[in-house]
């Protein structure tokens, strides 16, 4: 069989290398590669045969699976194993979309364009790797590999406190990864898995004692949770987002946060069912705290980007809640939400970036009535905000609706918390729009131009997907439900 996934990886790898070398022409190389990547992903989606089905004790099947020996030491059996199911495919699609959008958005990057585009693509490459890896080491490798380009993206192209933010981001998330790594290693060695492959870990992990499973699950959860990020381990995120360049924020919010959710689903929930079950109360508590905290705090923010960053925390809290429910409906909601949040938060961060370089500030109170001077930008702010607060017909709604439905299904009246928070979420977006877009013009420099074509093109791309999947969510849902979540909880 043709090694399709490796080919996709290789495309990105070669493209990235060429981008680094291309210097001034990097953007063309980057765009070509990104489009090729998108096309390949489209082919992957189209050719996805669906999940072979579920019955008790059966190891989930993956499409396009490849496996080659990598490190074989007897006690340490590591393979290069990749494969996809519906969950990964949706997130890979997100990766491809965001990569194209980011490349287009930063079309006019003048500071070291080769390095910029190369690092952007490297980040996406890492995320793609995480989504297709079916081996613990490979997974962890890509997981960590994402940090490095992001570190440079924030640190070199970022805002005034970028150095602090870059180091904080790197160290903070690295600490979490390390706890996760201990968990993963313990998972392999305590369960007696024969190799680091998902299949082997999956088969062995559920055989562990409940206590062990719980410990392992919590270790993994901490690792994945910081990426989410869960309150109170979230403080790297506002700093990183605020200081990151727009493209960096887009990838950070759009993709990096999703790694946590994906990891939790793939490597913790499925593999350690009884540990998951035991930990559910903790997960619920943290999810609720995260939802409430993210929303409440974002209401108090003056910086547009920081506000969006906290709203990301809020949304990822809902993702966590949906995962914690442990029902197939919940998992569906979680994946949908991740996709939706990826697109919408990317849009919002682009908007924040554009506001910043159009008006020289992102401080909401010092701006006002920007609609007449930059109508396109204002429209994008509106679309993004409305999508983010869960307006029907836009992409977040089906996801949030499914999540709330699942929450009611699993927790009944506890759904009041996320539901109530929806009002607060709406509150800060609407308030922001009132203060920034409407009212008499304030803080508008002379000679302001509306968005350049590449920025509006990138945003329009995202808006198209926002509306497309908002109206036709079954395009995604069909993919997701033809993966193992359909059978969850199974055994």
């Amino acid at each position, binding site marked *: 069989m043709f090694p399709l996934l490796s080919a996709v990886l290789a495309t990105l790898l070669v493209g990235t290398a060429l981008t680094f070398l291309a210097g001034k022409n990097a953007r063309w190389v980057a765009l070509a590669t990104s489009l090729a990547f998108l096309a390949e992903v489209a082919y992957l989606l189209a050719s996805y045969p669906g999940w072979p089905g579920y019955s008790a004790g059966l190891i989930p099947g993956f499409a396009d699976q490849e496996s080659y020996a990598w490190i074989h030491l007897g006690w340490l059996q590591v393979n290069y194993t990749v494969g996809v199911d519906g969950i990964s495919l949706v997130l890979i699609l997100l990766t491809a979309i965001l990569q194209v959008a980011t490349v287009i958005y930063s079309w006019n990057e003048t500071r070291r364009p080769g390095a910029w585009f190369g690092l952007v693509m490297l980040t996406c490459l890492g995320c793609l790797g995480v989504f297709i890896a079916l081996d613990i080491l490979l997974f962890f490798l890509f997981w960590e590999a994402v940090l490095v380009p992001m570190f440079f993206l924030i640190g070199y192209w970022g805002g005034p406190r970028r150095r602090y933010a870059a180091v*904080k981001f790197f160290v*903070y998330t690295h600490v979490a990864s390390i706890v996760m790594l201990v968990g993963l290693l313990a998972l392999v060695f305590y369960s007696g898995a024969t190799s680091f492959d998902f299949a082997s870990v999956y088969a062995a992990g559920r055989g562990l004692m409940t206590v062990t499973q719980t410990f392992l699950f919590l270790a993994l959860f901490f690792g994945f949770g910081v990426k989410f990020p869960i*309150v*109170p381990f979230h*403080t*790297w995120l506002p*700093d990183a987002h605020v200081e990151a360049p727009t493209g960096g924020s887009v990838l950070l919010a759009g993709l990096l946060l999703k790694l946590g959710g994906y990891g939790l689903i793939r490597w913790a929930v499925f593999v350690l069912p009884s540990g998951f079950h035991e930990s559910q109360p903790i997960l619920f508590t943290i999810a609720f705290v995260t939802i409430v*905290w993210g929303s*409440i*705090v*974002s*209401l*108090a*923010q003056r910086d547009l980007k920081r506000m969006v960053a906290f709203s990301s925390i809020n949304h990822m809290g809902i993702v966590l809640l949906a995962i914690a429910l442990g*029902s*197939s*409906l919940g998992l*569906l909601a979680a994946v949908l939400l991740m996709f939706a949040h990826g697109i919408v938060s990317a849009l919002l961060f682009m908007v924040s970036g554009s506001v910043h370089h159009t008006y020289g500030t992102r401080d909401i109170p010092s701006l006002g*009535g920007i*609609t*007449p001077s930059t109508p396109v930008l204002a429209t994008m702010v509106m679309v993004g905000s*409305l999508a983010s607060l869960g*307006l*029907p*017909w836009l992409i977040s*709604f*089906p996801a949030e*609706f*499914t999540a*709330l*439905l699942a929450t*009611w*299904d699993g927790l009944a009246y506890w*759904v*009041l918390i996320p*539901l*109530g928070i*929806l*009002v*607060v979420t*709406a*509150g800060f977006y*609407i*308030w922001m*729009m*009132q*203060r920034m*877009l*409407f*009212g*008499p*013009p304030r803080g508008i420099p002379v000679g302001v131009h509306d968005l350049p074509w590449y920025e509006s093109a990138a945003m329009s791309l995202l808006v198209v997907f926002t509306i497309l999947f908002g109206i*036709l*969510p*079954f395009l995604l*849902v*069909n993919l997701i*439900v033809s993966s193992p979540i*359909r*059978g969850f909880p199974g055994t």
Partner: protein
Amino acid sequence: MAFAIVGLAGTRLAKLEWGGWVAVAFSAAAMVLGVLIAVGEMLSPGQYVNAQFTWLQLAGAPGPFPNGISLVVGTLVDPLSALMLLVVTVVGFLVLLYSIGYMHQDHGLPRYYAELSLFLAAMTGLVLSNNLLEFFLFWELVGVCSYFLIGFYYEKPSAASAAKEAFLVTRVGDVLFLLGIFIYFFHFATTGPNGGWAANGFVFTNGSTPFLPVASGGSSTLLTIAGLLILGGAAGKSAQFPLHVWLPDAMEGPTTVSALIHAATMVAAGVYLLAITSVFIGFTANDQLAIVAIGGFTTFFAATMAVVHPDIKRVIAYSTISQLGYMVLAVGAGFAMVGLFHLFTHAFFKALLFLAAGSVIHAVGTQDLFKMGGLRKPMRVTAIAFAIGGLSLSGIPPFAGFWSKDDILGAVYSQLGSHPLYWPFFLLAFAAVFLTAYYIFRAWFLAFSGDRARDPSLPHAHEGPWTMRVPLVVLSAFAVAAGLFIFLPNFQSLLLYGAGASGIPPVYGTSDLLLSGVSVGLGAGGIGLSYYLWGNGRVFVLPEASPLHSVRRLLLNRYYMKVGYDWIGLRLVYGISRGADFLDRYVIDGTVRGLEQVFSTLSNQLRRAQSGVVSDYAAYVIAGLLGVFVLLLIVAPYLLAKLGGG
């Protein structure tokens, strides 16, 4: 679905310069279709489900949804929706037409027509939804359109603020509504034909009968809660107490918008929601009481605020709240179709009032009643139209309002026996009749009577162009005649809808004559008092010593509810969030940075040991040696003896 497509197409085309006319044309087409459908429905009562398609499908799995979950989008045309459709398309068309004249000097017209067309499309979609979820989708969409249209003059801070307020308050209602949907959804998930409601996608009907067992009179707590939540949603949209605060402020939008959205159609969606819920699902007895209470109370409550307000549009807005209260009251009493009938008539006369007020505002450029005066002469059409609307509103026969309002009072009266607590709310609603008549004619007298404007700086008033006048005339005609539709048998058949299934008796036209008499008398009394105080350009000033001053202040300040909400919103929630932000920055992140600080301090302390004197280094080596001895000879054996090795 055709309407949605028409509307959307209109939206796109309306971006052009002559977009207004395009929008009008499309809405005219929609109106024709709407009328055709309504007529069709009248001629052959009954409902039919048009094509529906699956929007989101989850296969069955063990658990609460053995048959899976399916969310569909489809259309349902039944008498209920036909009636509503008629209102939406007719008023919509007229308002759009009116807009051509009214809005001609505003900038941002393409946006205006686009949003208005989108609104109409969404409203049509809402009316034609065949399931609760689809209903909710459009419900939110109209909310957003309303948000944008209220904030149409976004440069005005007050408009932006009002838009925000409207969105947030209705959002509260939406959230309650959504929760209500969930409860119904799970309650009925697996009951019903074809694998239950979940598997069928929340649809209302299955063929010719309501899909769900009617729960009216049932006592299930869960269903009661669900009903209350639906009521909450409706209260948000229909501006019922305590979520009414946004509607008066929504008058910051163009008057046309107020007429269409905040009087005739969108705000009525809440009532419509209650109606479809009561028809297809049914409320429990406690729910009904709550609905009656909210409706009855709001009716009176809003009317009191309208009594003193100086702003012409806000007076009408309060009146809208009050009238919506009547409709809610009717639904609560078990007469959904009566409520809808009032909705039908109210749409016309309230739109008429708004458009007439708009005409006034267009002419004089202010909304302050106390600055106007004497407009009767230059604006004859408007004055007559406003008067017709006022009479209709006051429930003076034979204007439309009389028939529908009378029906409501009669219907509620007939149900008074079912619960003692119905009485006070019935009385409140009854009292509101008087207030209604008083305040609307206070407005009429202030604006139109007298010889000249009280504020001399106002421009010379003149009537608007024909595009503005025609809708006024047409609506006047409706305001006069719509009530008489009730005597058309075919129209009756629309209102009789569901009588068999839900047990609603046909009460219209058979209401107690005495009741009607008292109500008309109250209305007339209100007009009389109004004339006494304000007629012929008089201005009534409350005596200095009157104890009513405090009441007036209370009313002018809207019972301090907005202040209270602002306090909750700004002081409480924002305060909490500021506090949380502080915690986040200084406690949570402070811990992180504190950890860094701890390590730095440790590092500095340790570095001090690196003195550069080699003798010190040697001392460390010896100390280390001794430390190793201690570990080897004392600590390790002790620990191992305690814990075991390995």
